[in-house]
């Protein structure tokens, strides 16, 4: 369900920060799925939790780099409306 909300936000929102929110929501949805499936096996295995530790750290790093990019773009241009930022140059 969180995945659906994340995909909806990713495709319909124009603000770059909202898109980052949706990306984080998708990450969380995937993590929840991984942990739930690892827990509900018989017997429950610990590999799911290890994987989720890695993905949480990776998601945090990726969010920080993305935020740095958004901040830079907002310094060059005026607004961070992603439908207007369609050209790669300048």
């Amino acid at each position, binding site marked *: 369900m969180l995945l659906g909300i994340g995909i909806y936000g990713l495709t319909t929102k124009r603000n770059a920060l*909202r898109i980052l929110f949706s990306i984080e929501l998708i990450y969380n949805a995937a993590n929840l799925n991984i942990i739930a499936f690892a*827990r509900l096996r018989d*017997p429950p295995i610990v590999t799911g939790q290890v994987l989720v530790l890695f993905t*949480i*750290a990776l998601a945090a790093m990726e969010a*920080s780099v993305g*935020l*740095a990019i958004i901040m830079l773009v907002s310094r060059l241009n005026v607004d961070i409306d992603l439908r207007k930022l369609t050209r790669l140059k300048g």
Partner: protein
Amino acid sequence: MTDLTFLALATVTIASAILALEARDLVYGAAALGITFLGMSGLFFLLDASYVATFQIAVYIGAVVVLILFTVMLVGPQMGEPPMELKRLSLLTALLVSLLLGTAGSLTSATAFPGPDNCGTGCDLIGLSKTLINQYGVPLEFLSLVLAAAVIGALTLAKADRKG
């Protein structure tokens, strides 16, 4: 009892996730995102993943939400979203979302995944740390390298703007 807790946590998480995307103000959206992460952490606690839940609180709420708030403050006040325009893309995403919701609803029935009540050695901290060090020690080192690369990249991005 566990079902009630799960329902409450799931409702809070989903409601604040929707709020994070639809709030007028970006700061309210960031705060709602923090509440979403808190709800997720509670769900992790329910699934006997206490270390991951604490990790989630520390990393996501402690770092990511703080970063987002800083960026929102530095980017400045943005205009709100324009009124809803009916386009084909939004219709397609609405269809996809409803499909996903339907699948999720059918899978979350109580008899779909009967898990063992007692977690045993699959969820305790000792087993987790042993597996992490013994089997996944090399990826752990690579993770620290990637973390260093991300920090250097973010610093370079911040510096390049200052010079140029």
